[in-house]
């Protein structure tokens, strides 16, 4: 499955909408195990992505992904800014070689792992990106994948990021970054895979 630059734009705009609609909910999740800013961080960042996309004139997937990365890096702050920013930057680099969707998302996942030094099971956004990447490789990404990933992240104990300070108390809670990444992939399903 190839990703076109038009699809990528629609995907990112849909992501912006979902984050904006759920800003308060994301912050509420972060309030429980972090510092309560994930919703405003991501809303600010995806708003900037939307603005930047308006100025992309080339018909290039790499350009779309790169502008998204720049907007996220310069506007989100916190932990999620460099993480989402690195993911999109890695995807933009990979888009020079291929537009194969599963390869792109896998590059994004590697970008996150490289930047944040976390891995599967640490209760972070990686616990969303990893199962989504595997599903894409099998051509089987659906809402079920995302719902399952959210179920699976709940019982985990946070070992990275701010949530690691609450330790045991993070068990049973959703991870805000996994939830916002869930929106990213629901948007992908709606705009690209449907």
């Amino acid at each position, binding site marked *: 499955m190839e990703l076109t630059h038009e699809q990528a734009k629609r995907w990112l705009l849909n992501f912006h909408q979902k984050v904006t609609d759920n800003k308060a909910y994301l912050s509420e999740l972060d309030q429980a195990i972090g*510092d309560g800013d994930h919703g405003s961080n991501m809303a600010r960042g995806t708003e900037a992505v939307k603005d930047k996309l308006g100025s992309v004139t080339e018909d290039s997937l790499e350009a779309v992904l790169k502008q998204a990365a720049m907007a996220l890096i310069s506007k989100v702050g916190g932990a999620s*800014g460099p993480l989402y920013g690195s993911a999109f930057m890695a995807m933009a680099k990979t888009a020079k070689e291929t537009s194969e969707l599963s390869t792109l998302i896998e590059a994004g996942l590697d970008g996150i792992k490289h930047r944040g030094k976390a891995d599967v099971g640490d209760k972070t956004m990686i616990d969303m990106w990893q199962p989504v990447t595997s599903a894409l490789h099998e051509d089987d990404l659906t809402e079920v994948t995302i719902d399952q990933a959210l179920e699976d992240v709940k019982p985990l104990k946070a070992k990275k990021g701010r949530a690691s300070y609450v330790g045991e108390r993070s068990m049973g809670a959703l991870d805000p970054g996994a939830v916002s990444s869930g929106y990213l992939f629901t948007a992908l399903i709606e705009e690209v895979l449907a």
Partner: protein
Amino acid sequence: MKKIINEPHAVVDELLEGMLLAHSDFLTGITDTRVVIEKEKRATVGLVSGGGSGHEPAHAGFVGDGMLRAAVLGEMFTSPTPDQIFEAIKASDTGHGVLLIVKNYTGDVMNFDMAKEMAEMEDIAVESVLVDDDIAVEDSTYTAGKRGVAGTVLVHKILGHYAREGKTLTELKELGERLTAHIDTLGVALTGATVPEVGKPGFTLAENEMEYGVGIHGEPGYRRSELKQSRAIANELVTKLMETKTDTKKIGLLVNGLGATPLQELYVFYRDVVHELKNYDVEIVFQKIGDFMTSIDMAGLSLTVIDLDSDTYQAALTSPVDVLNW
């Protein structure tokens, strides 16, 4: 929420504007980004620090001769972004390189790292020192590690002194790494902090409750207890902080208010700390009492102990500086 502000989202920009209006004699900003920088260009390594806003006077209050060259202001309690930090690095480099002083939080570490990578692409020499003085958190593989809190200000002071003396970037980085191991901090909170855009405290404690080990963004501490007297708090903090300092003979103290605790209480507490320390074979050779690294409007305080057996650190702490809040 009761605060003397305008629109809650505008607080960071407006506090920055106010600060620059008041102190334009030696401080300036960088257009379109939230950075406070010295006007004077000095032919030494530039120290740059920063982090989320809400810890005033940290870090902008420590910009000036003998401490920082620039401070980067993030959103409230949120790390600044790489491009902001990059602008601060560029403006601080006078050809001698830039040293970043970073508090150990996942967000800060990653954003400062990315800025460092951007600067290296433009051939600016950049190194960083990570401060992790909060001993409430164990430095383990199961957390993001010890947090950077009030002790960071002592790092600004000591490294700022050596930068002014003309030490090189490499020397400063090595000094910084050794230095951070000598600084330990523990805090207590009586109330949570209210981020203006959130409108309510990050956590709540009952009227008769307090929490030991709270971080400067309201990160959970190691124990909640009924509200204790200053004496008992001093006993607990001193005991924990001195545990690892069995061979230390000379120490410095920093009693830091978290934003809503009056100076009178800080002095009462300092008195009790000095009294507690009579049980140890140490001499207090340096002390600072006041608000240095706050948590917006949190009531509470932190105590930092720095090992000063090395006379050079002591001299570096006491040399005169020209900054707003030391």
